[in-house]
């Protein structure tokens, strides 16, 4: 019961979407549309599940007086404060005529997004520049031919994206043509396209076979089976 019903639901949902591609008429076409709406709604609840679980885990940390309970308190405060601001802006915007979006410039929620969320997220990703640089310094060794190809491609693409490498050629009057940038563009246009297309076709075949395994009930890990 605990595994059979989820497997049946998986198969029906998967088959409806797969068949509706070939038969976009009643009942499959309509079912696809309805299922699409349901997915959107369930996804929203899943996001809320994540937020509530974060609250639960953080409260547990404080209750058990773990050493990082201070940070759990910060998480709870920020999460609840963002929710209160969002609900306030959202519902007050819905009551106005015409409706005002909770994300409209000038709202409190937009202030949170611009001055807290955006700086934090972009700085987090910007920090990766340092880690990637240090990782590549350790990992990039031209040990064999394949590794050398990887190194050369990365070197030219990085150099070609900024004017720094072309500058000596242009400034010293050696050439009027930005060869570095052109070679980087050539790598992106031809060898990269060839390799990427092969990878994308491989991914597509892999996803198709995995999807088929899920729909046919061979792959059962999502319902707690092996």
């Amino acid at each position, binding site marked *: 019961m*605990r595994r059979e019903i*989820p497997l049946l*639901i*998986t198969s029906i*949902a*998967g088959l*409806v*979407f797969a068949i509706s591609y070939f038969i976009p008429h009643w009942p499959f076409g309509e079912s696809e549309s*309805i*299922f699409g*709406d*349901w*997915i959107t*709604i369930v*996804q*929203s609840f899943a996001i*809320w*599940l994540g937020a509530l*679980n974060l609250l639960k885990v953080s409260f547990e940390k404080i209750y058990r007086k773990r050493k990082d309970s201070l*940070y759990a308190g910060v*998480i*709870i405060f*920020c999460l*609840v*404060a*963002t*929710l209160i601001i*969002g609900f306030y802006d959202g519902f007050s915007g*819905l009551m106005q005529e015409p409706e005002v979006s*909770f*994300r409209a410039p000038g709202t409190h929620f937009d*202030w949170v997004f611009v001055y*807290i*969320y955006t700086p*934090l997220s972009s*700085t987090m990703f910007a*920090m990766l*520049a340092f880690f*990637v640089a240090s990782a590549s310094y350790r990992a990039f060794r031209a040990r064999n*031919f*394949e590794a050398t190809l*990887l190194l050369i*491609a990365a*070197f030219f693409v990085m150099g070609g*994206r900024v004017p720094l490498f072309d500058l000596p050629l242009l400034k010293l009057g050696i050439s009027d043509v930005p060869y570095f940038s052109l070679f980087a563009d050539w790598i*992106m246009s031809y*060898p*990269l396209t*060839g*390799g990427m297309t*092969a*990878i*994308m*076709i491989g991914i*597509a075949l892999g996803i*198709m076979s995995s*999807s088929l395994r899920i*729909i046919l009930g061979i792959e059962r890990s*999502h*319902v707690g089976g092996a």
Partner: protein
Amino acid sequence: MSELIGVWLAALLTLGIFSFLYKDNPIYKICESIFVGVSAGYWAIVFFFDNIIKKFWYGVFPTDNSEPNYLLWFGAFLGFLMLLRLSSKIGWIARWPLAFIVGATAGLYMMIYFVSNAMLQISSTMRNVVAVNPETSAIVWGETIGSVIIAVGVLSGLVYFFFSKEHKGVFGQTAKVGIWFLMITFGAHFGYTVMSRMSLLIGRVDFLFTDWLHLLK
């Protein structure tokens, strides 16, 4: 005034995150916790108003003269079942909506990837290898060589991904060429990713020096 407070707050949070470059410290951990809390709250609100209110609530109780869509109640019911995951006793019921999401995504992706990634990529690779200038009817050697490189890259890359036959002889040599193409692809992607991260870093430093300290105009 709120902009001034916002810029100062953003600058302090930016510096707080960058403090991790020295070593892991309490200021970084507080900024990290703020990020976790704010982003969880932000997306919960976005999904609540965009989907639960606008899709479900307005669908069931339309404000205009359109027909109510009562089938959306079942989506909300599945969503409610998802929240039961928080309970240790009846948390297993959350497998039902999860099974629905997994099955629907599998069915949807199977067809999307079949069309866009497999068929479309194959058809775009099967283009005319010899590029000709339509005005002069002369062969454009640069594009022709590029097309040959793409075709060789795709075929050899696919041969490398074919593991049902042992990579020996001509097959093995072709797979080796495929590895070369894949290495160039990974290298180029790596370089591209590094540069995108660099542009983000430049953006943050620019914010600190321009908007916060006003040292740059």
